[in-house]
Each structure stands twice: as structure tokens, then as C-alpha cells.
């Protein structure tokens, strides 16, 4: 466990703030940036970095979902059902993370970073909505008020096994690598399962709290979660994502996506360089 100094806490707070801002601007959690920074730049063991990041993921999920609850954008039924898969995946990932070598996790992170970068650059944007307000959304579908079009839209959930499988993998990757996993779930829910992007993102952000908790508890029990550093990171991420959401509405994210995809390719290469030794 690293020695905690005020300077280190300040560095972690700043890193959290930058990750939170980037995450809010790009529409993903900041974990994919925070974990490599803590592991590769600050030099924390991978497990310590993942534990801190998972804690920030839980805080972001709770904050964002508390703000959205009551607007029907979060599909709670679908979320609860898919959580069965994500929490199971996360539980297994959390145990696996304690048993495999750091180099394996670094190489896996390298692969996931490339996947995230590619998804970010080729993000699908299907609308998937039924404009007839009387349409039946089924047991799992939803209905919400869409700001852009100013109408209430309805959607049905298709290919539930695909949604469950994607959720299981996202949960697994989440607690193995310390990221939220939304970047894996959301595009699949949107492209294949009939869920509009905003509802998929809101439901995923809602689920991620439970997913990350299932993983974080295991890191906590293993003594890899340092409370002072986690506190600094959580507060930094809260501040950063608040700021990011303020500026996010006006800023065009296209150049930022390209820049951050480039950063993720570099992160991937560094993870492979470290993990290959």
C-alpha cells in the first residue's frame, strides 16, 4: 500500500477531476483514464488503482442516477434484470482479479482500451423509438419524454439474451479492470437490443453502481482500497464530472473523442509494454 501524503492526495484529487471532466464530456465514466494514470504514472499496483477507480465509479453512478430518477429515462425494470448478469460477472471478475498476475490484467486493459477507442470513434446512434404514444412497450420496454423532439417516445427491448450476455461481460471487465463497463454495454443495448441511446446510457449508469459495488467490496476486503486516496479520487471525480456536465452541453465533443481515442491507443501500448515484461 502506498504511503499517503498530502501531495499524493492532491495528485489523486487532480487526476480524479481530470478523469471526471473527460468522462462527462465523452459520456463515459472516467475509470478508463484514471486506472492507467494511477497504475502507469503514479506507480500503484494494478489492484490498488482498480479499487480506487471502482469507488469513483460507484459515486458517479449514484450521483448521476439520483439526478435523473423521476424522469423515466432510467429503465429500472430492465436495469434490475440486467444487474443479475452484471453483478454475477462482477463477482467472478473480482475474485479472478485477486488470483491472476498484474501483467495479465495490464494486457487485458490494453485490449479493452483499444476496443473502447474504436467504439468511441465509431459510435452508433440509432434512435430505436416508436413515436406512437399508445404503443405497448411490453414488460421491459420503456417510455420517456425526449427533449430534442419534444415528444413522448416508446421503445421495446429486443434480443434479451444478447443484453444479458453483454451485461455479464461488462460486469466481469468492470471489476477485473476497475472501470464502469458502460462503454461495452451501451453500444450493444443501443445497436442490437432496440434501446434508444439516452435510455441505454441512463440505465447503464444506474446499473454500474451495483456492478462496481460487487467488485469494490472484494478489493476492500483484500485491503487494496486505501480510504484517504479513494476519498481524494471520489471528490475529484465528483467535481470534474459536475464541471464536465456544465461545459459539455456547449462543447463539440468530436475533436475530444479523436484526441482521447489517441490517448487510449497510447495507454494500450504502454499497458502491453509493462504487461509483456
Amino acid at each position, binding site marked *: 500500500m502506498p504511503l499517503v501524503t498530502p501531495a499524493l492526495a492532491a495528485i489523486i484529487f487532480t487526476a480524479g477531476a481530470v478523469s471526471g471532466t473527460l468522462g462527462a464530456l465523452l459520456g463515459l465514466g472516467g475509470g478508463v483514464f484514471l486506472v492507467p494514470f494511477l497504475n502507469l504514472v503514479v506507480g500503484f499496483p494494478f489492484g490498488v488503482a482498480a479499487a480506487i477507480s471502482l469507488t469513483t465509479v460507484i459515486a458517479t453512478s449514484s450521483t448521476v442516477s439520483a439526478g435523473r430518477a423521476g424522469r423515466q429515462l432510467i429503465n429500472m*425494470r430492465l436495469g434490475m434484470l440486467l444487474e443479475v448478469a452484471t453483478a454475477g460477472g462482477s463477482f467472478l471478475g473480482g475474485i479472478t482479479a485477486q488470483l491472476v498476475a498484474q501483467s495479465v490484467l495490464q494486457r487485458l486493459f490494453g485490449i479493452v482500451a483499444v476496443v473502447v477507442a474504436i467504439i468511441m470513434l465509431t459510435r452508433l446512434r440509432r434512435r430505436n423509438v416508436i413515436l406512437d404514444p399508445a404503443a405497448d412497450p411490453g414488460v421491459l420496454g420503456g417510455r420517456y419524454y425526449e427533449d430534442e423532439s419534444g415528444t413522448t417516445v416508446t421503445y421495446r427491448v429486443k434480443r434479451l439474451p444478447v443484453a444479458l450476455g453483454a451485461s455479464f461481460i461488462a460486469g466481469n471487465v468492470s471489476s477485473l479492470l476497475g472501470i464502469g463497463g458502460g462503454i461495452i454495454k451501451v453500444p450493444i443495448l443501443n445497436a442490437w437490443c432496440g434501446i434508444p441511446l439516452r435510455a441505454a446510457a441512463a440505465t447503464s449508469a444506474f446499473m454500474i453502481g451495483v456492478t462496481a459495488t460487487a467488485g469494490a467490496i472484494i478489493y476492500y476486503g483484500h485491503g487494496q482500497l486505501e480510504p484517504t486516496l479513494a476519498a481524494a479520487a471520489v471528490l475529484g471525480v465528483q467535481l470534474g464530472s459536475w464541471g464536465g456536465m456544465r461545459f459539455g452541453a456547449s462543447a463539440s465533443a468530436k475533436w475530444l473523442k479523436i484526441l482521447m481515442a489517441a490517448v487510449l491507443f497510447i495507454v494500450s501500448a504502454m499497458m502491453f509494454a509493462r504487461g509483456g515484461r
Partner: protein
Amino acid sequence: MTPNGRRQAGAERLERVVGAVLRAGVAASSLCLIVGLLWTIAAGSGGIPSSLLQIGIVVLLGTPAARVVVSIAEYVAERDWRFATLTVIVLLELLASAVAALVFNRRL
């Protein structure tokens, strides 16, 4: 009320309750973490500031679990046994993680 209307009313109440639990959890944990962190920086770790940080982390980790528990209560109140069962499974998975944490803890 039609079955659909009742489901809609139940869903809205669930969202309100879950939103309230999440807000309370975020507020309580953030307060403990801010005070604990500043106190630790000012006076060093140990004693009350370290306890505050631990409490903040436990409340943070407990918040999603708490919203799972209130969801179970809401689904049971609505006699929606299918979703009550699914949510109980999620809670059991979180408990399994806690048990795994204890197992790893003992090995240290």
C-alpha cells in the same frame, strides 16, 4: 385503475424512493469524505478522521446495496413477484461478494 396504470404509478413511486436513497447516500458519504480528507491532511491520519473516511467509503459502497433493498420492498409491496425475485438475486450476488471479501481478508 387499469393494470397498466397501476404499474405506471408503482414505477413512478419506485423511481422517487430510489432517487431519495441515492441522494441521501451521496450526501452522507461526500460529507464524511470531505471532512475526513481535510482533517487527515491538517492533522495526519488516525483517530476520528480515519474513522470518518472509513464510514464515508462504507456508506458509498452501501448506497447501491441500499437501493437494491428498497427496490425489493417496493416490488413486494406491488406483489410483482417476478421482479422481487430478480432483485433478491442481485442482493444475494452482492452478499456473495461480501463473503468473498471476508475469505480474502482471512488469507492476508
